[in-house]
């Protein structure tokens, strides 16, 4: 089953039909104090074969966005209250659960931050992968088993055939994440949503898993929505990046571009607060204040209380996310006049 392989480094020219198109997505959660908006008008798209990073801190709404896309909010008290999510032209927000379930695993897959908690401890890893294969690829038990072993090997698990019958607790964190990848990719989905897949892993393990992800993407022509807070991971693996703050996207651009010349003060702040290698003794540049929680977002631009460049206009209205420069969107009134420093 070959797919047209697209090399990662050749950013594909925008085709008329993006694989995933999220438009003005809004999500609210029901709480003791009434409904609280967590995702407030998020818009972005992913082309086939492309890796888009969704970057933000806790409370930004990035994970909830991912959950909304794949329709997993039904298990919580969150609801999509507006906007659309189109996958390959198909509207997902109105799709009945039964059809969504068919899509999950075969068209869109997701992996999570804590791999051990995402695997059922009562079943062997092999059988869990085989179950996905059997279901979506309509395989016999024997064929599903064979495919599962194939997949385990492909994700770099040594002695895959022997380890088919092992249980999740017998694997380390990094290996569990590989098993998750095997499960997520066994049915050849076109889009993989990875929610902080390497945050819980050691740095050397992370490097290998990211490398694996890159290899698999090239082999399978996969699109990836990578949710992370680690800008280093973004730099190494992603084509484009969207930065989220307080439920909105505040900047979106090609990864290289955003890192070199960010246009939104929040992005600049994030970059400046990272300890650069071997620049000892200097104080880190910190963003003052703290991330506002959903439900108590400030009036006007949500970042303005913490922004070094805020002016009166910033208090009064929320800037629109607009395409200012080639392929580079930002949500800041002053983006054009500011010239923000990025990474060297």
């Amino acid at each position, binding site marked *: 089953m070959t797919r047209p392989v697209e090399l990662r480094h050749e950013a594909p020219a925008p085709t008329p039909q993006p694989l995933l198109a999220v438009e003005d997505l809004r999500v609210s*959660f029901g*709480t*003791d*104090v009434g409904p*609280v908006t*967590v995702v407030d008008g998020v818009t972005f798209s992913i082309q086939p074969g492309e890796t888009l990073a969704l970057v933000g801190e*806790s*409370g930004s709404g990035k*994970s*909830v966005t991912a*959950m909304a896309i*794949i329709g*997993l909010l039904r*298990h*919580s*008290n*969150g609801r999509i209250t507006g906007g659309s999510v189109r996958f390959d032209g198909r509207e997902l927000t109105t799709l009945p659960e039964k059809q969504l379930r068919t899509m*999950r*695993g075969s068209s869109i*897959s*997701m*992996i*999570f*931050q*804590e791999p051990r*908690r*995402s*695997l*059922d401890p009562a079943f062997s890893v092999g059988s*869990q992968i085989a*179950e*996905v294969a059997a*279901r979506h690829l309509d395989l016999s038990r024997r064929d599903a088993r064979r495919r599962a072993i194939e997949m385990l090997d492909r994700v770099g698990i040594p002695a895959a055939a022997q380890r088919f019958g092992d249980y999740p607790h017998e694997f380390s964190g990094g290996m569990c994440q590989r098993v*998750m990848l095997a*499960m*997520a990719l066994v049915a050849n989905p076109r889009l993989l949503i990875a*929610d902080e897949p390497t945050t819980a892993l050691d740095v050397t393990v992370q490097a290998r898993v990211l490398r694996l992800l890159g290899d698999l993407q090239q082999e399978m022509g996969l699109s990836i929505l990578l949710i992370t807070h680690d800008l280093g991971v973004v730099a190494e693996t992603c084509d484009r990046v969207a930065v989220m703050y307080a439920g909105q996207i505040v900047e979106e651009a090609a990864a290289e571009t955003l890192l070199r010349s960010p246009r939104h003060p929040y992005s600049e702040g994030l970059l400046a607060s990272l300890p650069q290698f071997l620049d000892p003794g200097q104080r880190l540049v910190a963003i003052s204040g703290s991330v506002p*929680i*959903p*439900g*108590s977002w400030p009036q006007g631009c949500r970042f303005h209380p913490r922004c070094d460049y805020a002016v009166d206009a910033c208090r009064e209205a929320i800037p629109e996310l607009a395409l200012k420069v080639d392929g580079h969107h930002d949500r800041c009134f002053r983006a054009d006049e500011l010239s923000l420093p990025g990474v060297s």
Partner: protein
Amino acid sequence: MTAIGDIPTKLPVPRRPERSGVVFRLRRDRIAMVCLFLLVFLIVVALFAHLIAPQNPNAQALTNRLEGPSGKHWLGTDNFGRDLFSRMIVACRVTLLAVAEGLGIAVVIGIPTGLISGYLGRATDAIASRVTDGLMAIPPLIFAIAIIGMLGPGLSKAMIAVGVVLSPRFFRLARAASQSVAQDPYIEAVRADGCSVFRVLWRHVLPNSSGPLLVQTTLGIGEVIIAEASLSFLGLGVQAPDASWGSMIRDGFDVLNESAWSIFPPTIAVVVTIAASFMLGDGLRDAIGRKQRVRE
């Protein structure tokens, strides 16, 4: 089947400035509040029993035995013509005192030993747990009877027995709570501060274990009443002419063939009090349980 991992079902909600979450939540639980008021009411009655009782609870009038409720005797009279209403009030005091005694002993024996055992672990815990297991293996009523056999009948002694019998439950609970709290990082932090073992237990472990212990104590009220009623019913608890609700049930039971009325008031009182204590315990458990801070 896609794996369902960490679905964020919780949300960082803006924090309301609640001073004490537990009290706040308890206040909203109507049933629990009703039960609380009821118990407080009974305590007040018990405190002022001798002042409130309209007639002498021990005054016998054999010509007026086993009368139903009337203007003179609001709840009628018992087998010896004594005013049931007054007896109920005084018995309330006796019963609640007994509860305080029994529960008090159980708590005093069980909780400190449980907390220490759970925190220190190893040899201390091994010994204490085995002793407790041994205690729990003995059928409670028989054990109580045995202790009374040693000490002689009488309400106080019966309550000592009840307290001893009930203490293993508090021990276990305190031990479990202590073990769990002992794992919490802030315990390590205060130890790094230089806290002595005693201070750690008193100022840190106990307050953080108080939730389940409070619930168990409330439930314990009901259990001790049942125990006292049973023992008094058997004649091993309160001795005549004093009355507890349990002994009044016994009295009523003895004359069932003559009159079905006199058994009702004490029975209803016991049932209502037990129900109130259990429901309050439930409400407390809910109020404390939801105190978990919601965070991402």
